[in-house]
């Protein structure tokens, strides 16, 4: 039984496989409809065999499918296929070429220019000394401006009780 709280073990099993927590009827239904889905899929192979045999003049007795795509659908798509395939191949080739070029060029780049604390503070419109101090704190209460930018931070909780922090 989980007993969440400070100092207590809170690790549930990694894989949570507890079908016993679901209603037996739902479990049975789930297995039943899944078996039915497999059966329907296998029936489709029967229809495929029917179609294949019908194409050579043989008839396989049994239920016929309600309807299916016709050869004319494929012929219509085949007319457009070469152009589509050419476009896709060109895009892929360009993608591969550019990736190869990026690997050759980018791996020889100068090392990445790190974002120092001063630049971080400047770009966030903050005082670097204050940001440095905030980096050393374990718990902070942060206020934001209208666009979600950090406006201020303090180690003391705010006066209004909006933020729940006490147990």
């Amino acid at each position: 039984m989980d007993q969440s709280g400070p100092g207590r073990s809170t690790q549930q099993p990694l894989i949570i496989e507890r079908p016993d927590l679901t209603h037996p009827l739902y479990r049975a239904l789930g297995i039943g409809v899944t078996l039915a889905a497999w059966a329907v899929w296998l029936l489709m192979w029967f229809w495929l065999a029917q179609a294949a045999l019908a194409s050579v003049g043989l008839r396989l007795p049994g239920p016929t499918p309600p309807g299916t795509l016709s050869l004319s659908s494929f012929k219509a798509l085949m007319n457009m296929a070469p152009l589509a395939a050419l476009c896709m191949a060109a895009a892929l080739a360009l993608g591969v070429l550019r990736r190869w070029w990026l690997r050759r060029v980018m791996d020889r780049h100068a090392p990445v220019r790190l974002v120092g604390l001063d630049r971080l503070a400047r770009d966030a419109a903050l005082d670097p000394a204050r940001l440095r101090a905030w980096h050393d704190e374990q718990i902070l209460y942060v206020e934001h401006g209208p666009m979600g930018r950090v406006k201020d931070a303090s180690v003391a909780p705010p006066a209004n009780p909006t933020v729940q922090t006490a147990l």
Partner: protein
Amino acid sequence: MMPTLPQMLGDVWHAVLAFVFIYPVLMSLFWMIGGILFYWRIERKPHRRVDDPPHRDAWPPVSVLVPCFNEAKQIEETIEALMSLRYPHFEVVAVNDGSTDNTGALLNALAARHPRLRIIHHVVNQGKAVGLNTAALLSRNEILIGIDGDARLDPYALHWLVVHFDRPHVGAVTGNPRVRNRSTMLGRIQVGEFSSIVGLIKRAQRSVGLIFTVSGVIAAFRRSALHEVGYWSPGKLTEDVDVSWRLQLGGWDVAFEPRALCWILMPETLRGLWSQRLRWSMGGTQVLLDLWPRLLQWRQLRLWPMFIEFAMSILWAFLFVALVVYRLLDLVIYQIPLDSVPVLMLGWTGALIGLVSLLQTTVSMLLDRPYDRGLMRNLFWAIWYPSAYWLITAATSVVAVPKILLRDMEKRAVWTSPDRGVRPNNH
């Protein structure tokens, strides 16, 4: 008598039908081939043992950023797991974003026990993106790793993420999220789906040097790269998609590391699943609508295949839904034949789509098997993958596009309270 829609459209009708069938099949094939290529060229070296990361004399210090909103039920577990990481030098910066439950107090108590845990309390709720930005500003290190407040990192995840930053053009690295909760049918379907979609698609995209998005639940960033692109955007519903695209538009490489594991809780109710997937669809659409002018520049040519594929997936969704609506109309007005077709693909087309989807799920599970014991057991539920993924994608895409077009672009994205599945302490 008025001609039917197929008669009016002629060849276009047949082409639409064929596109609706061919597109999922083609994409599955691409993802499988790409995933296998990624495994062959990159993933199998040096090995796939998660608990044996590369050795080096010194590891750079990193900051793990954990934005939280009302995470009282999960946060202790998440923080305790972080404190068990084997990485030598790291700090954890947890952000309490104006939670209305006990999250703040719990974090303060945890900070008293763990000196490397730092807490930032937002006086007023600001949203996840601002939480990440604040944590980034107030953290000390160059490598920043963002995780969710309910995620559990593997003890060696940081090692596997950090090694990628040896290459100077890498701006971000995303890890491999694995589903923890597998108690219901929905949970088990998502186990396979995460391997097939998140895992395999990322591998396939990386095989051509691209990635659609980092997984927000586990992603490492180079601060310099983030600073260049302006960090996370508060107005974006999916800040992870947004930052991934802006990094790549800025010329940075975004890598995928399948050995950096992160265990997450996923919705196990239909409502929760719908809500999550709708947000993902809206977020992806919002980002692409915002960035498409930049994408059309010639220097962004390498990103076009992914942009085109995303656009085609939206087109597919709309065509699929239109065909379904037309089919339903035909069934209702059965006295007047409208020449529709059963777009739910009963018949031999369904057999082929099912086969390709099952192959995709099997390939993806085989690739992820070293990282997730017992994964193959979920193959039984994989028959739902074509409907679970493609139908939900179609429905959410069609709903997402108008919602995003009508949304106020300046509106701040707010936290949602996700369904975290069936767990023992729920009873």
